[in-house]
């Protein structure tokens, strides 16, 4: 299976584009290594700003440069940019309408055993409550390139969360990808799984397992958490009659929260919100943690079956 990390995709693309566009600026906070920036700082020193370990000021200074017309991409661990710099993102980027792209790298539980200090499991809940801030979680490198390409055409205040490790390539045609438009990757009527980030490929694996059992599900890649593609949610709710959300985030306030806010108020169907429980996460690799919480393909398949069974029971009882 072909794999590529979203960070590497970004680095290669931004180096190429920045060579032709002097207004592109990349800002880091002692994070050029983990951001896999490669030779960018050496090749384009005038378009690289190293702020040291100071995420708050990195975001504010990026906003100042953006105000002057620079196309600024500020990168560092999602955990720090979404919590320590949350106020700077809110005030200097979103509220001030400065078109900075804040890229949270090594998001979710990418850092594994480094633990809760380095996990970003609250970032979506925080960022999506900020007015005028777009929130993106790309699921593969193609999607990352498409999103960055769109932002280079027309900037906007945005928070993008990417993982640390290479992820399977899902898309081959970037023209299928638009900020704000979800991608329905496979269609089935037994249940809809709405997911994002690296759990998209795991959901596709789970769907393949279920297909062997004669269960056919829809998988939606909801890469834009805000603005939410509510049209897609309505369609799959109507067609499938139940929705499971799956995310590398706290079970509170993330993708599941966003989808359920729409579903409960517009098209109520049984829902299951799957995320990381509200507790300390055991030390381990991300794969080990996913398995522990039954967020590996087998576990996801079980959760979907359980939701379908709930839907069927409700239908049999006439919704009582």
């Amino acid at each position, binding site marked *: 299976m072909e794999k590529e990390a979203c960070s590497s995709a970004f680095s290669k693309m931004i180096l190429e584009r920045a060579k032709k566009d002097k207004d592109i600026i990349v800002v880091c906070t002692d994070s050029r290594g983990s951001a896999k920036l490669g030779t960018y700082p050496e090749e384009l020193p005038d378009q690289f700003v190293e702020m040291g370990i*100071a995420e*708050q000021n990195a975001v504010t200074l990026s906003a100042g440069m953006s105000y002057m017309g620079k196309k600024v991409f500020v990168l560092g661990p999602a955990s720090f940019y979404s919590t320590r710099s949350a106020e700077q993102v809110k005030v200097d980027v979103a509220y001030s309408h400065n078109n900075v792209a804040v890229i949270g790298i090594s998001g979710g539980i990418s850092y594994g055993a480094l633990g809760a200090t380095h996990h970003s499991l609250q970032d979506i809940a925080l960022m999506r409550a900020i007015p005028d801030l777009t929130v993106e979680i790309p699921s593969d490198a193609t999607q990352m390139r498409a999103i960055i390409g769109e932002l280079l055409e027309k900037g906007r205040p945005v928070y993008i969360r990417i993982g640390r490790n290479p992820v399977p390539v899902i898309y081959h045609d970037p023209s299928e990808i638009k900020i704000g438009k979800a991608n329905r990757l496979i269609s089935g009527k037994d249940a809809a799984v709405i997911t994002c980030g690296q759990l998209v490929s795991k959901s596709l694996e789970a769907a393949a397992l279920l297909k062997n059992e004669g269960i056919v599900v829809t998988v939606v890649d909801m890469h834009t958490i805000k603005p939410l593609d509510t049209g897609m949610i309505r369609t799959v709710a109507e067609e499938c009659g139940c929705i499971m959300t799956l995310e590398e985030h706290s079970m509170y306030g993330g993708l599941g929260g966003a989808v359920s806010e729409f579903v409960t108020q517009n098209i109520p169907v049984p829902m299951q919100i799957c995320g990381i429980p509200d507790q300390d996460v055991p030390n381990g690799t991300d794969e080990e943690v996913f398995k522990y919480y039954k967020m590996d393909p087998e576990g996801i398949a079980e959760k979907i079956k359980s939701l379908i069974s709930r839907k069927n029971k409700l239908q049999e009882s006439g919704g009582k």
Partner: protein
Amino acid sequence: MLNEKQIKKLEIQSSEICEKTVELIYNGGGGHIGGDLSEVNILVALFNYMRHDPQNPRWEGRDYFILSKGHSSETYYTLLAEYGYIGKKELDTYGSFGSVLGGHPNKKIPGVEANTGSLGHGLGLAAGIALALKKNGKDNRVYVLTGDGELGEGSNWEAMMAAAKYKLDNMTWIVDRNFLQISGTTEAVMPLENLKEKAEAFGFKTVEINGHDFEQIFTALNVREEGRPVCIIARTVKGKGLACAENKPEWHHKTPTKEQLEQLKKDMTEYRKELA
């Protein structure tokens, strides 16, 4: 160097701005009056010193100003109206529902470069603007006014390190050093001294002046040093001009009474007569 006539003119202008600011706060039902009045002379000096065009607020050749102590917005609004960035009628909407003139400045107001109000942001924004100007090969200058209590925010010190690292000699940071914040003296709440030594140690060419003395303010605004940003520590009196409020922390945010406003007007008229 300013001549006597120029200084007198600036002092008359300041006394008028002081009076109008207090009137604005009185009519609008409140404001951060202490810090508004400590910054009057500094803002009057900047409006007279900076390159700017009220008819074309986004003029490319302008200097940039950020009021990092955004709560002291009433003096700023008064000056923006005085110079024609906003209309006098618009100024009168201060304090009313839906007015663009909120408690803190917003870029929706012509002439305002940054949405401030949360402390500890202005210095970093100024550094970002200054860095972009340098990268674009422009000679516009960036001015930022912070409070002193505001310097408790660590983000300021991050911004200072960055301004020094990137040799932002195109920016001037002014501290309204009135030694008071809402809970008491800055030195009791969280000591800042020796601020001059600290700013120097963080890489700023630093001068300390009387922030109500125009000759000293203009001399300080002229300070430049290649490769270093400038810091002006402007010692001021919180509540300056409103006798009942001077140096009193409880006047950090307060509405004067009708009598206090009338007394101020009388004092300022008297002061202007003396100057004439």
